């Protein structure tokens, strides 16, 4: 696709805008360490699916300093047009400078749908863009469908971190702004032959109002109670080497715990016993290493999202509540598991 063809495409887009009263689906890119973040490519892929049904074009917006070359990636992922705001004032993310560029652009282009990544940047910008433009905002979308009659996006959003999903729409407010959960949508096919000429945006530098003072070396976050820890690695009598259990917890960014057997072995304190008479947990990931799993223990972990159990006895009751079971001696499995995790 050469520049003149793109111009033609843009000219057609203008017509579409007038006929449909919409200005396309826009994706605001996240740039991390000089590269387009995967969530941006996933959002472009999701936007393409919506665009097919809507009869709209997909545009991507790049902001940063020295980011113009990244436009090629956005075209390859499926953008029909790319706008680039390349300016030293945009070198690192700050709300006001980024916001002013986006608001000026969107006020001129009248987008129908705007997608951000549900990233720190997207979560700060999306509500401000929505508020300024009078738009609705749906956060953390994990799936999107279209109500074609009203050109309304219907998005699934996780409730309680994904226990279930509400399907939500903003039928009245326009534009429809959404943040897209990283990893929820498939990465698009990258077409190396897809090319385009990005248009650059004039940037009038704006001072950020929040100033970064420097590293907070004096700050340590409060520790999360075991009952609320998102990842727990728990040991039982058959764990073998508790040092490896601690290493696994560190590799997974999790907390160490255990059953009564682990307390009797002197590996954990009484406040670390997972048991309905002790601490009841519901982490995203629970790893039971050498835990046989009696009724009290299993009842205390049944609301975990994912349970991996490692135990040498195939008849151990822990295997009845586990999602993934390894019938083997933890002493053989843990070193291999640590290696497979790159720890």
């Amino acid at each position: 696709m050469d520049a003149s063809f793109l111009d033609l495409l843009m000219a057609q887009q203008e017509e579409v805008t007038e006929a449909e009263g919409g200005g396309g689906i826009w994706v605001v890119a996240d740039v991390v360490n000089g590269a387009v973040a995967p969530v941006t490519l996933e959002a472009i892929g999701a936007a393409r699916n919506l665009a097919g049904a809507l009869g709209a074009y997909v545009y991507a917006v790049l902001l940063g300093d020295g980011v113009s070359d990244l436009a090629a990636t956005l075209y390859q992922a499926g953008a029909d047009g790319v706008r680039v705001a390349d300016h030293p004032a945009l070198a690192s993310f700050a709300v006001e400078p980024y916001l002013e560029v986006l608001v000026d652009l969107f006020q001129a282009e009248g987008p129908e749908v705007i997608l951000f990544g549900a990233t720190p940047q997207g979560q700060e910008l999306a509500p401000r863009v929505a508020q300024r433009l009078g738009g609705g905002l749906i956060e953390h979308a994990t799936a999107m469908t279209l109500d074609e009659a009203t050109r309304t996006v219907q998005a699934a959003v996780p409730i309680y971190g994904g226990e279930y999903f509400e399907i939500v729409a903003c039928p009245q407010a326009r534009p429809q702004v959404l943040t897209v959960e990283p990893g929820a949508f498939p990465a698009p096919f990258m077409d190396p032959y897809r090319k385009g000429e990005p248009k650059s945006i004039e940037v009038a530098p704006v001072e950020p109002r929040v100033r970064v003072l420097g590293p907070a070396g004096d700050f340590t976050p409060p520790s999360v109670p075991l009952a609320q820890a998102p990842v727990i690695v728990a040991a039982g009598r058959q764990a073998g080497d508790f040092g490896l259990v601690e290493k696994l917890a560190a590799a997974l960014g999790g907390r160490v715990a255990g059953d009564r057997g682990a307390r009797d072995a002197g590996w954990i304190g009484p406040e670390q016993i997972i048991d309905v008479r002790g601490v009841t947990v519901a982490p995203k990931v629970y790893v039971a290493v050498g835990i046989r799993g009696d009724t009290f223990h299993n009842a205390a972990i049944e609301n975990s999202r994912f349970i991996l159990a490692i135990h040498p006895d195939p008849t151990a009751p822990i295997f009845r509540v586990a999602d993934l079971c390894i019938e083997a001696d933890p002493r053989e499995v843990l070193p291999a598991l640590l290696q497979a995790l790159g720890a």
Partner: protein
Amino acid sequence: MRIIVILGRVLDPRGIVVNPRAGRIFVNREEYILQPADRCALEAALRIKEAVGAEVVALPRTLLPDDDVLRQALATGADRAVYIAGQPAALPDDGLMARVLLAAIERLGGADLILTGATTMDTGQGQLGPRLAEALGWPQIVGAWTAEVADGRVRAVRQDGGSFVWVEAPLPAVVTFVPGALKPRYPDGRRLINIYKGVGEIAAALERWEAKDLVAPEALTPMLERRGQDFPPERERGVRLSGTPEEMARAAADALRARLPR
């Protein structure tokens, strides 16, 4: 100095069971708790009040059917609370509430600092604070772990990738807190009893306003509309791995990586 802290409630997840097969949510124990992130915002407000002196005013983050979270805020140390009566939306709707709260803040005569949670435990919404900041034209610090006020500025610790940084904004400003950021204090038992009995000054600190007196009727139309529910696939329990320890470890590592929180 006036600090407005915006507080919501959430159905305690320990009382609900989600059954993907039945496609239903069973509320076995209908008990509400303060949104954990909002609770940290309240704690931050009280710490700033203790450090530099401030009037702490609690406002609700949704049109709640009752004023329990506000009574709890008063019992915990807030000076004043305003219950806003109105038709609760089918879904917590930050876009709608931003309009109502802006009107309420104006009626209160403004503020120097607005504190609230950066995200809700149930719907995961984090747009209320930034929407208010935008409408008021104030700076925002999103996802604070702690905050303090000095010389007309608010300083806060925020996460930046894997580390923490101090950031600073001029007042007035909006600061939102991550859940678990601060160890919150408990409400004072005596104050709580007095509030519920309607005894003393503390009981008089709870006012009641009507949403329909604050904004035009069309402003109370929700922005979000429910179109249904969806459930994750049912868990396939008891999948047994086979092979050598190395092979099983690799399969387990892949499964763990896919499920670790980001």
